[in-house]
């Protein structure tokens, strides 16, 4: 209640609104991410009171997660790394004339999961932070292995092709300076590759650029279905909402829990939530062709992840991602001492922030739903306008993120790779999955082995990691079960 007293002060309400609007804009634009935006605004925050400033910066953080899905769904251009998975089903929905439904579901899932994330932050932050500390490298390795096992769910017709694509992704993840020995790997003497290949460049390349290339060869007008007229057709149906019941819960819980772990992040949360959704779905085979759950689960997960990520930041002073690191920096610069005593010593700030996040999520829902029909109109543009726009947004997005023309060249190369993969029927999602998980997974494995002096038994001797590795094994066996089952049914028939 004390929190709402802070958050409902007119000035703070205003800052909350400014934050979520800015966040939405930043999320929609590929390239410029929340960490850079927040860092740019830091000097301004010194003119504000800390509560208002914190409320605004947090608004940018979770607001960006709302905006991120927009370009993924409409243009197949992931606006943020956490929205890459949303491309898989979201863009397919848009192609079928259901862009409005996809955008609407994304907003609703974001709202539900975002609110659950705040609820978690409010209720269980301190005890949960303690549990998160029991996670270390072996557990992170198991978590990444679990994520990587999702590849069998992302595979199209050919498992071999999916695995090959995943291996390519793992290889790309290995490019750059090795953290442990500071040796350069696969940099071909290029300084630009020392920091590795930015995952967003690859994602935009293989999704957006490849999409444009594939559509250029179509002689006839592209097969975009017209956007239906009438507001009713632009919003999700009751059936959509029913289909998403589990996805809402899944996204909320998975996102929050993974968010609490300082070494994971929202991209991994969205992938795991998508995989889980597909694994338990009754219409598993239709994922990737435009099912609403495929949008709701990852979009929910990346929103409740923000609530989770604030847990270690505010209860222990431990940042888990780029954005939380900047928020930590902001707290320090304002003269606070983030750490285990931060909440007990600054209750008004903490509870004010929590209350503002409830309000901010409501604002975002109100803000985003009316935008849905407007955004859906984008797809009315004829192909000769739409595709150059996609190209432009992709290139500007990549360039504005790094300011490096080398990255633009990489974007072109990965666009070409994506096109070739498409022609040869290699799925792109496993490549991205390998790339997202590869770096963290390798690091976790090597850290684990350093801890155990080279013995692999550390991975199975620790209960949490053993459970997750068994789950990963189980997921790997799913296609086998399906095959055996189909074979059995056929045998019964004949």
């Amino acid at each position: 209640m004390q929190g709402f007293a802070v958050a409902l002060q007119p000035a703070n309400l205003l800052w909350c609104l400014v934050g979520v609007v800015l966040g939405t804009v930043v999320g929609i634009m590929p390239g410029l991410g929340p960490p850079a935006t927040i860092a740019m605004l830091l000097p301004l925050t010194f003119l504000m009171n800390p509560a208002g400033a914190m409320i605004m910066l947090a608004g940018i953080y979770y607001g960006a997660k709302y905006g991120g899905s927009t370009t993924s769904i409409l243009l197949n251009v992931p606006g943020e790394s956490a929205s890459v998975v949303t491309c898989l089903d979201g863009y397919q929905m848009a192609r079928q004339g259901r862009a409005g439904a996809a955008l609407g579901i994304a907003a609703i899932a974001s709202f539900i999961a975002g609110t659950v994330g705040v609820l978690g932050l409010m209720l269980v932050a301190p005890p949960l932070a303690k549990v998160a500390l029991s996670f270390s490298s072996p557990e992170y390795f198991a978590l990444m292995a679990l994520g990587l096992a999702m590849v069998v769910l992302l595979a199209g017709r050919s498992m071999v092709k999916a695995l090959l694509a995943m291996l390519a992704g793992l290889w790309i993840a290995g490019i750059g300076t090795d953290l442990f020995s500071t040796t350069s790997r696969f940099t071909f003497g290029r300084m630009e590759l020392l920091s590795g290949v930015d995952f967003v460049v690859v994602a935009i390349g293989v999704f957006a650029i490849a999409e444009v290339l594939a559509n250029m060869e179509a002689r006839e007008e592209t097969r975009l279905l017209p956007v239906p007229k009438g507001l009713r057709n632009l919003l999700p149906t009751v059936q959509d909402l029913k289909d998403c019941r589990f996805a809402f819960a899944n996204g909320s819980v998975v996102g929050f829990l993974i968010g609490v772990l300082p070494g994971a992040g929202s991209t991994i949360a969205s992938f795991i939530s998508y995989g889980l959704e597909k694994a338990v779905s009754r219409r598993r085979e239709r994922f990737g062709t435009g099912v609403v759950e495929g949008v709701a689960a990852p979009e929910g997960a990346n929103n409740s992840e923000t609530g989770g990520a604030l847990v270690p930041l505010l209860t222990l002073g431990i940042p888990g991602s780029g954005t939380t690191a900047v928020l930590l920096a902001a707290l320090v610069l304002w003269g606070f001492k983030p750490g285990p005593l931060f909440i007990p010593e600054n209750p008004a700030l903490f509870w004010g922030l929590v209350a503002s996040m409830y309000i901010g999520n409501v604002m975002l829902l109100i803000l985003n739903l009316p935008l849905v029909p407007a955004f859906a109109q984008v797809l009315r543009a004829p192909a000769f306008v739409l595709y150059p726009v996609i190209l432009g947004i992709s290139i500007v997005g990549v360039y504005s993120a790094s300011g490096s023309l080398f990255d633009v060249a990489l974007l072109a190369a990965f666009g070409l790779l994506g096109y070739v993969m498409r022609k040869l029927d290699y799925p792109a999602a496993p490549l991205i999955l390998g790339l997202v998980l590869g770096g963290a997974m390798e690091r976790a494995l090597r850290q684990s082995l350093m801890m155990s002096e080279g013995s692999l038994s550390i991975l199975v001797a620790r209960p949490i990691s053993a459970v997750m590795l068994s789950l990963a094994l189980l997921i790997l066996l799913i296609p086998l079960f399906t095959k055996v089952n189909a074979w059995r049914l056929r045998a019964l028939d004949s």
Partner: protein
Amino acid sequence: MKEIAALAVMAFAGSFVEVAFAQGFQPTRPIEVVVHTGPGGGSDLLARAVALMVEKEKLLPVRMQVVNKTGGGAAVAAAYLAEKKGDPNTIGFFTGVWLTSPLTSAEARVSLKDLTPVVRLVLEPAVIAVKTDAPYKTLADFVAAARQHPGQLKQSGGSITSRDNVVRQLLQKHTGARWAFISFPGGGERMAALLGGHVNMMVIEPAEAGEHIRAGNIRVLAQVSDRRLSGFPDVPTLKEAGFDVPAVPQVRGVVAPPGIPKENVAYWEDVFLKLTRSNSWRKFLDDNQFEDGYQNAAELARFYDEFTDRMREILKDAGIKTVR
């Protein structure tokens, strides 16, 4: 093509410098401040704090804008500064990594020595911390335990060229004890590994340690500093604890692109000297438990050599291959 572009840049910058020279140097555009960490990293934080203090103390006629050029230790940021040859409106904030990454990475072709030294600003001491429930009451206890179980105790830290590992190498060489060093890319993960009991020890910034000490999570065994920090009056320095190894500080300071006239350097020396004498600066140092490390350009150039030689030897002892 590249040569032509470089010539054009030089000619352009040259004309700029001449103008500046004629009037006595004054920055004309917002100052671009290049750092090698992402938003929220150590250098980024210092640069942003300095930008705020410079503004508050009205030391510059223009604003300072922080630009993040991450990658390859500090290779990307250093190369970026080198490309800005002669640009009077760009400076960079360096750390020891700018000197060490060219030692281990063939691609990191630009070293601090290729840039124009300006000033050294701060020396960051550190403290050696363990969890409160650990059996080690002193650094000697920890070293004795490490000697008893060679390689089994663990320290969490950054990359192997980071100050954390340098402190470990020096202590190992001095005592003959051995323990493992586990690299974590983010400071948060390092701390989480210590608090979760997955590693036994960590070399940590005093300000960060302070909060966890107040909360009773960690205990500090010794401080990596030549004299006791005001925030840790009861904790022995390395020397006082009986370990006669150099207390390697993390250094931070300012460089400019190559080809900058002496006048500009003198201007910057003056700005930063004024900054280090301001009240905001003293409060900043105190809040973070940093030490004033001001050195002018000439002293800084000598410091480079000492530091590089010492690092090369330490890396050699650690079995890390150096390329330069």
